[in-house]
């Protein structure tokens, strides 16, 4: 019994923290006047410390550390930003919730795209817009679609930092071998399916040595395809005009997308590498899948690792008439209000302005492959040089420029978005396994999600 109790202990480590406060600290005020003026920092004595939680690893973490060091050096004796890695985005948000209960939130926190609604509802933050308004600081340089994603109630809530977009990646060599022109990539799901058939290659024994298509079972791609179609993922205009009360991904369009995917797998034209993104990436890099969906962020890694010419194409439309576009992904930076001094809030804002300035975004973009959130960054020589070296990135730039910011491309702002994404992933798996039709699987997923949505909305009040 000792051992089983120990298993429980893992769960309850956070429980120890709960005793201090039985009610949540959610009553803080973070209205527009929550942003202090620049003088707050001038009046502060000594060094103002900014605790910054993030989820960056590897090369991205190196690039981030370099930027933080640069900021700290420029504000020596005045501001010190302390970056703290907190695990995956999911881990980070779990820890952030605990920190709210303990009234010990970090000054700046990096939260993934789908955590945005929760951050707004948490009432723990000072909107970026409040600072910008106070300062008369223009946010116009921020890329319009990216700004659109993080805007709630007409106000920019957080500063976008690391943004990415999905692309269709191509194995150009495989295209040529199959007699296809990589300059004419598929633009719709139907075309992609046809080409996948042509690109699938078997050896003499009938074993598939190359699949035409392959992507991780990642709900993000379904979100993207629905947005390409201009369809909404949840009600209340994708949760933008009010709190979303239910998801709408179980539409005929949603079912069409999931069924398309499952049919490609069942037909033997798409590899099923499961949910793990690294497995799907490995398959593309190894040349065992010819077309592949992934974020812009992996482009550099692909061109360095692959022994073939890596091509990129705009993310496919669901059908020829689609008027939508991709939804921005990645994460943004949130400034904490309650429990933080005016000097800290101000220092946090200075840090965010620094990170999103054209020079820093150019460094960030070229060092990581994330899309620059500041459109001026693309005009800097260092950035132009990088794009010249990786011309495939041009696809992403054009794709975003060609996307009109709408409610569909703003993405669904749902408090339980991570669970919604997981529900869609389960639906894809069920459709591939053949245990359900796509429509049935999505309907069930939406139904299972409903209690979570309602419980979330009722706890937000």
């Amino acid at each position, binding site marked *: *019994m*000792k051992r089983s109790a*120990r298993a429980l202990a893992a769960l309850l480590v956070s*429980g120890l923290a709960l005793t201090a406060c039985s009610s949540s600290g959610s009553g803080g005020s973070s209205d527009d006047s929550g942003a202090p003026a620049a003088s707050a920092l001038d009046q502060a004595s000594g060094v103002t410390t900014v605790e910054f939680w993030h989820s960056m690893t590897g090369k991205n973490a190196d690039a981030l550390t370099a930027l933080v060091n640069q900021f700290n050096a420029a504000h020596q004796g005045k501001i010190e930003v302390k970056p703290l890695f907190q695990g995956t985005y999911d881990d980070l948000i779990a820890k952030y*919730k605990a920190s709210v209960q303990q009234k010990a939130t970090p000054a700046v926190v990096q939260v993934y795209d789908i955590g945005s609604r929760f951050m707004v509802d*948490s009432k723990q933050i000072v909107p970026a817009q409040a600072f910008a308004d106070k300062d008369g600081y223009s946010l116009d340089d921020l890329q319009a679609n990216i700004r659109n994603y993080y805007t709630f109630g007409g106000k920019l809530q957080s500063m976008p930092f690391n943004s990415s977009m999905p692309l269709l990646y191509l194995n150009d060599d495989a295209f040529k071998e199959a007699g296809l022109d990589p300059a004419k990539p598929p633009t719709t799901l139907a075309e992609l399916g046809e080409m996948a058939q042509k690109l699938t290659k078997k050896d003499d024994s009938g074993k598939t040595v190359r699949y035409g298509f392959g992507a991780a079972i990642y709900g993000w791609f379904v979100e993207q395809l629905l947005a390409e179609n201009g369809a909404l993922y949840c009600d209340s205009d994708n949760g933008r005009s009010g709190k979303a009360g239910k998801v709408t991904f179980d539409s005929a369009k949603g079912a069409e997308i999931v069924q398309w995917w499952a049919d490609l797998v069942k037909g033997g034209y798409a590899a099923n590498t499961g949910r793990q993104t690294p497995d799907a990436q490995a398959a593309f890099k190894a040349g065992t899948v010819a077309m592949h969906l992934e974020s812009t962020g992996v482009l550099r890694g692909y061109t360095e690792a692959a022994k073939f010419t890596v091509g990129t194409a705009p993310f496919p439309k669901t059908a020829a008439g689609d008027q939508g576009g991709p939804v921005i992904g990645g994460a943004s930076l949130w400034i904490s209000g309650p429990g933080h001094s005016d000097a800290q809030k101000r220092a946090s804002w200075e840090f965010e302005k620094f990170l999103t300035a054209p020079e820093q975004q150019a460094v960030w973009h070229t060092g990581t492959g994330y899309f620059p959130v500041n459109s001026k960054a693309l005009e800097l020589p260092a950035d132009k040089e990088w794009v010249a070296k990786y011309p495939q990135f041009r696809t992403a730039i054009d794709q975003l420029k060609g996307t009109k910011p709408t409610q569909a491309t703003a993405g669904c702002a749902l408090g339980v978005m991570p*669970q919604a994404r*997981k529900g869609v992933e*389960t639906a894809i798996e069920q459709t591939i396994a053949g*245990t359900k039709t796509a429509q049935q699987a999505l309907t069930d997923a939406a139904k299972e999600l409903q209690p979570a949505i309602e419980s979330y909305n009722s706890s937000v009040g």
Partner: protein
Amino acid sequence: MPTASSPPEPRRRLGEHGLAWAFLLPSVVVFALFILYPLGRTFYLSAHANDLFGAPSRFVGMKHYTDLFASADFGRTLVTTGLFVLFTVVPGVLGALLLVLLMESRIRGVRLLRSAFALPFAFSVASASVVFSVFYNPASGVLNGLLSHVGLGPVGWLTDSQYALVSIAISTIWMNLGYNVLVLSAGIGSIPGEITEAARLDGASGLRLARSITVPMLGPSLFFLVVISTVNALQSFGQIHILTKGGPDGATRTLVYSVYEKAFAYGSSDFGTASAQAVVLMVVVLCCTAVQFGVLERKVHYA
């Protein structure tokens, strides 16, 4: 026997008790802090709903429990958990027994084999799971590579819901093998030599010796392994987290993994439901152990 020994003087008894408590105190404190308190807290949380940040917000009584038992998903989780125990405990213990019995036959290099079989014991769950994920990799995995040489496959070891649980069970069996072999080897070593010798003189050897002497004499070790393996299987987390994250389509979502998902994964902080599941898990472990002690132990022969 009231007169056989007179009770000690009260003062001395007090001193002894005081001393006993002083010795016990550190472990009592640790026990209370890290086991009793979390246990009580789990019961408390399981009866409360949560606010946005996972803090208990209002009393809901047995609602989390009734919701759990009304949900088909949870039923499936229980079945998966049961299957996982079955798939790991039975082959894990029998496999180790077979290896140990084979090593009893006097073949050359048996010491080397014994070390080799005990080797998995030295691997942490995390590193072993990463190695297995390489074996199982759908595109470049070793296993599918081997299968293709004999014209089979590819098998979706971790991506096909039919195979995923078995694949994780295989990796778990391997991870536990070293420990099981060690325990059984020690058990065999402690069988008195004269018993085996007597049996040999009576003409028993090979299977007969194993069936009538070695295995019955290993009873206590085998019983110990069955209990420990069952509890371990019920609590397995690392390999599931690294290999499948409970998927595909929930095929490898065991009770422990479900607790984790509800409490921490996917931005969920449903500590109420997670705690209710943790209580169910505790009851399951308790029942399994009680049944094993009640039924199996009767048949164990302690030399």
